[in-house]
């Protein structure tokens, strides 16, 4: 426990408005400092490796067929119930693969719990991508199917 420190008060400071000038000095110094903002969308932020964008699906060349085994664990883990998986028998092999896989991006809250639940470790079939521009014109467009989940979103280039 400690008492807070208060600034000293002095007659000189009171009459010469010293603290007001100190404030002006701080802003003047910043006038010549480089800016810290980004000109989005011309400049895009540098994302950290663990950045959690929208969840997407991926494959791995080592795996036969799709990496996803349609186990439905992600759908169960999802707090927003935004994942719907329909399974079918895996073509030319044991187990299952997704017949359809839908994620409703409108409801997704980017928590990453689906990735935690995914059993195809260490490369998970569902992963948090670096896509973050998700605006759409219609609500239906947020419903993303297998193709959309694999291809993802290609960001537009802006020149100015």
């Amino acid at each position, binding site marked *: 426990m400690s008492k807070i420190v208060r600034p000293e008060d002095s007659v000189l400071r009171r009459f010469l408005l010293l603290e007001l000038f100190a*404030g*002006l000095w701080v*802003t003047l110094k910043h*006038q010549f400092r480089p*800016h810290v903002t980004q000109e989005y969308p011309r400049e895009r932020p540098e994302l950290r490796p663990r950045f959690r964008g929208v969840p997407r699906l991926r494959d791995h060349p080592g795996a036969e067929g799709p990496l996803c085994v349609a186990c439905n664990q992600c759908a169960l883990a999802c707090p927003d119930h935004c994942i719907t998986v329909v399974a079918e028998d895996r073509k030319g092999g044991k187990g299952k693969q997704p017949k359809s896989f839908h994620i409703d991006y409108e409801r997704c809250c980017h928590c990453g719990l689906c990735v935690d639940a995914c059993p195809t470790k260490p490369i998970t079939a569902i992963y948090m991508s670096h896509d973050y521009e998700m605006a759409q014109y219609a609500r239906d467009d947020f419903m993303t199917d297998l193709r959309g989940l694999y291809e993802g979103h290609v960001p537009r280039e802006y020149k100015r």
Partner: protein
Amino acid sequence: MSETLLRFVVVPVAQIAVVIAALLLIVVYLVLLERKINAFMQVRLGPRRVGWHGLLQTVADVIKLFTKEDITPRHVDRLVFLLAPVVIILPALAAFAVIPFSGGSFRVGSVGVRAWISDVNVGLLYLLAITSLGVFGVVMAGWSSNSKYPMLGGLRSAAQMVSYEVPLGLSVVSILMLAGTASLVGIVQAQESAGRWFLFWTPYPQILGLFLYFVSGVAETNRLPFDLPEAENELVAGFHTEYSGMKFAFFFLAEYINMVLVGCLVAVLFFGGWLPVTFGIPGLREPLSNFFPFWGGAGAMLTGFFWFGLKVFLVLFLYLWMRATYPRYRYDQLMRLGWKVFIPLGLGHVMVTALAILVRRG
């Protein structure tokens, strides 16, 4: 006949047109300057999309405001509501009639053209009178909006503008005593013949006067840290909450024109108007007061514009700088500051100035 026409119609109309056009242009770029300076002080970049480094941003904003639907809310007092923007902008523009922008002169035919619209011998009184008219616009806007936030804003600004007229006037009184004339041209000429600006007048430099004038000017123009009538964090937008489109643009314009006016007056009253910055070195005066000697009077006028503009710019920069730095006073504190600090200080200042004049005369 034609000379009379030239002297009393053509030249004044041309001067007025030039002043108004220049003012509008200056205001457009003052807004941009404000945004840029604030942005740089806040380690941002400011507008950059329209034009090179955002140079056309304000132009785009103005076009937007002009083409916007002009909304008049149903519950307002229509006539007063429509009049308020006009009432606020007219005095702001009219005040520039007596500002001497530069010295020198050139001739058009037989008529000499000076860099001021008119040189009234009661110029200062005229200014004090006409700038205090602006408050009516604010009160009318606040009242006629028939809405609670604008009313609070209107009342605040009425009180504020009325109380800060007094210290403003008091700091002008000492200048009046020093110059011995109320003509603004006369004031600059007095500084020219004295060889030094009133700011550095001996034996009593008018630094306190400048401080009083500038702070009261900031309070008069409702800028931070005294922008209570439109304190957006308390009163949303103050007295112009209900205005939109062109009418809003008028309030905006008037505010910035008033800022320029305060800048011009500080330059004229304390910084010697169009006189060059010589740092007290006598040899510099001649070459610095005319960069273009081969053009004669017109060259002197252009040079005067430069010095005058530089001084005004510095004052305006201080305005924007303060805006980026300080928090805002509270309404009652502002009043207390005005009545209990600035008015006594102003009275004291006038007395000390009078004493100093006596001492000087011996």
